[in-house]
């Protein structure tokens, strides 16, 4: 640096993050500066334009906007802007406009990245100094996915075709053929007071009416699906997609209050997003044997990678993957029943863990169980259920869902029990908690009925929600377990690394990130008596009780989303590279953006664990 540039250098070093920067770096920085004068009102940065600089305001003032046009920040003398674009895809994220005549120091991208790599303080400052940036980074990313920005009403292209519930089968089929629709909405009442009561589809006609050879005079109400699942007109397309995935329905009436605005079909969304995971789901139901299922299971990873590349958020990806897993399971159960005959007593097939939470990814094993009707007699009935459980479990293994190493599967007699036994299990876990026992049964507290008499699972959920919130001892034990796994963050915000199987220094994003987070969210949710299973839904329930302040909940949500999405992207990259995806990440494989946001997110986990420890007054135990 020319010594004569000292005036410029001296201004920089009076301001963060240049005040602590080693002299040599500041000198390099000073020399790289390009000075530019801008008049008040000048647009300095436009959204989407390639970013080439970080800006330092030498004099004057600059306003930073969100893409929506809303004012985000005001930047004055000695402050910086434009760093976001350099960190993310090198595209301008926040438009900037001069509020006053300003003299700007432009720091070229190369210099910026050099400083980022060589000065930890600088890296932290440009990334972490303002926590809300994590949130804006996330919401920005989500905005780019059309499924998340377009309303479901956009898919409605025609008038709703409906008929009264007492219409006969033959007439219903004729209306559907004439109008060329795959679903007919059935209405109770007339005129103004008409309310949708149910829906029948092509598939219902085939599977229920034709195969069972019902007389054509049968009223459709006899075969109509009960408990009509609808969606609000204000919902986004991805919510419709999640609703279909979760409930395994292919038609959703769109409601505006009591009024039906239209019906959205699976095909509408598939058309919208040509290769969506919904398409895969519908394909699953067309498979006639395990071999066919195995064949299309290869598409699961493609579907996953595509969603990642389309900037879907973790909730959407987790739900879609869980929906796919659920569909495989459901189809296997249908095929199993075809093979073994109808079940001797009713039962419910239950998903546990990540599938139940709608947080499944591609590296996953099967965790499931069966709740049998209380009329179950082991000697008479168990052979059937064992055979069915085995058929499903083997089929899932064929489709890439490996056997559970902890043997939490319906093939294990312990987890294939009548409802009354399940009630006793949960009652015992909650009323006589032992930390060791809970460590192994933790997974049962994320449960979801996915086939058969799902109301059995609902009953267990209600029991848990009711008892858990009243048992401080149970919550304390659960909290103790939840504190076993800590985020990989050392003193001075350095990553704490472990050696993975390949002898590389890594940290595990699941064990050290998403798992401890979902553990602690589960405990707060149980304490609130919430029935929710998904972590984001649980956070919403917690929010209603004011158990945790809104700011902290927001941070938890952001941290979960960010760690999840980094984990998801890591897996997608492995798949694209033809490698076996896992959860072990080497810090050097992450972008500077991901590294510094991850530290921020891990800090949130760490703080949340401190809060949990304080709230349940648990001793620190470390037995990772």
């Amino acid at each position, binding site marked *: 640096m020319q010594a*004569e*540039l000292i005036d410029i250098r001296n201004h920089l070093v009076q301001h963060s993050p240049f005040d602590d920067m080693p002299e040599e770096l500041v000198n390099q920085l000073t020399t790289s500066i*390009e*000075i530019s004068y801008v008049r008040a009102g000048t647009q300095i940065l436009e959204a989407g334009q390639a970013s080439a600089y970080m800006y330092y305001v030498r004099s004057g003032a600059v306003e930073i906007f969100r893409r929506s046009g809303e004012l985000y920040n005001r930047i004055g003398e000695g402050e910086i802007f434009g760093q976001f674009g350099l960190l993310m895809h090198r595209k301008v994220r926040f438009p900037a406009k001069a509020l006053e005549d300003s003299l700007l120091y432009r720091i070229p991208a190369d210099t910026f990245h050099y400083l980022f790599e060589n000065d930890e303080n600088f890296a932290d400052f440009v990334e972490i100094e303002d926590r809300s940036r994590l949130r804006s980074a996330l919401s920005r990313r989500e905005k780019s996915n059309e499924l998340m920005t377009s309303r479901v009403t956009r898919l409605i292209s025609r008038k709703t075709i409906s008929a009264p519930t007492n219409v006969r089968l033959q007439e219903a089929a004729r209306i559907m053929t004439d109008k060329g629709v795959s679903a007919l909405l059935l209405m109770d009442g007339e005129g103004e007071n008409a309310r949708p009561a149910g829906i029948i589809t092509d598939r219902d006609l085939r599977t229920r009416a034709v195969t069972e050879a019902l007389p054509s005079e049968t009223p459709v109400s006899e075969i109509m699906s009960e408990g009509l699942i609808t969606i609000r007109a204000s919902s986004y397309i991805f919510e419709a997609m999640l609703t279909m995935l979760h409930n395994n329905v292919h038609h959703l009436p769109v409601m505006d209050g009591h009024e039906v605005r239209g019906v959205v079909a699976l095909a509408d969304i598939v058309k919208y997003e040509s290769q969506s995971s919904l398409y895969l789901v519908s394909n699953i139901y067309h498979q006639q044997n395990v071999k066919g299922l195995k064949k299309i299971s290869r598409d699961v990873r493609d579907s996953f990678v595509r969603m990642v590349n389309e900037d879907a958020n973790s909730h959407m990806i987790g739900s879609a993957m869980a929906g796919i897993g659920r569909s495989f399971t459901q189809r296997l159960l249908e095929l199993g029943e075809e093979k073994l005959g109808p079940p001797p007593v009713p039962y419910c097939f239950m998903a546990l863990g990540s599938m139940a939470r709608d947080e499944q990814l591609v590296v996953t094993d099967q965790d499931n169980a069966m709740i049998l009707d209380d009329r179950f007699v082991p000697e008479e009935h168990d052979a059937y259920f064992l055979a069915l459980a085995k058929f499903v479990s083997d089929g899932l293994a064929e489709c890439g869902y490996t056997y559970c190493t902890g043997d939490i599967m319906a093939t294990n007699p312990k987890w294939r029990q009548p409802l009354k036994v399940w009630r006793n299990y949960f009652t015992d876990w909650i009323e006589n908690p032992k930390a060791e026992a809970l460590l192994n049964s933790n997974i049962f507290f994320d449960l979801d009925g996915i086939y058969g008499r799902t109301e059995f699972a609902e009953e267990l959920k209600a029991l848990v929600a009711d008892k858990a919130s009243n048992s401080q001892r149970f919550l304390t034990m659960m909290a103790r377990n939840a504190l076993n796994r800590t985020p990989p963050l050392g003193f001075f915000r350095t990553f704490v690394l472990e050696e993975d199987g390949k002898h590389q220094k890594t940290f595990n994003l699941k064990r050290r990130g998403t798992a401890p987070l979902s553990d602690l969210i589960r405990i707060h949710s149980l304490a609130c008596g919430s029935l929710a299973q998904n972590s984001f839904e649980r956070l919403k329930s917690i929010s209603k009780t004011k158990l945790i302040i809104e700011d902290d909940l927001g941070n938890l949500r952001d941290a979960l989303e960010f760690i999840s999405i980094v984990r998801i992207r890591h897996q997608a990259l492995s798949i694209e590279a033809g490698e076996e995806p896992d959860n072990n990440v080497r810090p050097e494989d992450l972008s500077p953006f991901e590294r510094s946001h991850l530290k921020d997110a891990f800090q949130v986990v760490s703080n949340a664990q401190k809060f949990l420890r304080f709230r349940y007054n648990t001793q620190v135990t470390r037995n990772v």
Partner: protein
Amino acid sequence: MSEHHPVPDAIKHLPWPEQYQALARHTKAPVLKHFYEAGCPSPQTPVSEVPMVALDFETTGLDAEAHSIVSIGLVPFTLDAIQLDQAKHWVVRPRLPLHQTSVTFHGITHADIDEAPDLSEVLEDVFASLNGRIPVVHFRNIERRFLNVALQWRLGEGIRFPVIDTMAIEAHLHPDRHPSFLKSLMGKKSLSIRLADSRTRYGLPHYAAHNALIDAIATAELLQAQILHHFSPQTPVGDLWV
């Protein structure tokens, strides 16, 4: 000091681009030949497209015939950006002794100068930054005259080039800067067109140090501000240079 190789008046009256071509043929010293050969943009060129170089000299006094250059600062720039990575500064040994008064002003001491090279030793480096660029100065009577005299001494030939003078621009913008007798009686002061004062009018920051480089940078910033306030990026450079 005498002009060994005078430039004919016919050349002196040519427009600048043609004058550079003629001078390139007329001149003897290679360093000047290169300078003229690098060319001069047509006067119609929008100022936003013109490569410029802000130039500032510290001198032992104001009279080019009696005083010498002690330091040179320059920074290449455009209307859009002043590139600090190309900023240069040299201290050179004056032909005449330093006055104590000028030492206090520019801070260059006898010790600095004793070790400094003669201007002739750094000429090539200086011209490397000048070639192909229009010089921008604050008060044209210093840089252009001192450089002309210094080159005549060393090369036996002077130099001719247009300059954009930020002080002349300020003077032009404020023709009534000297208050009438009546107003000056009422305490109204003259409006200053000195570099630091001019900058204040555009919200440009104050620089504590005084050296040729920081003043060159200050001049470049001032020109950016002047053009954006009173002219436009499309203004022909010929309207600005003198």
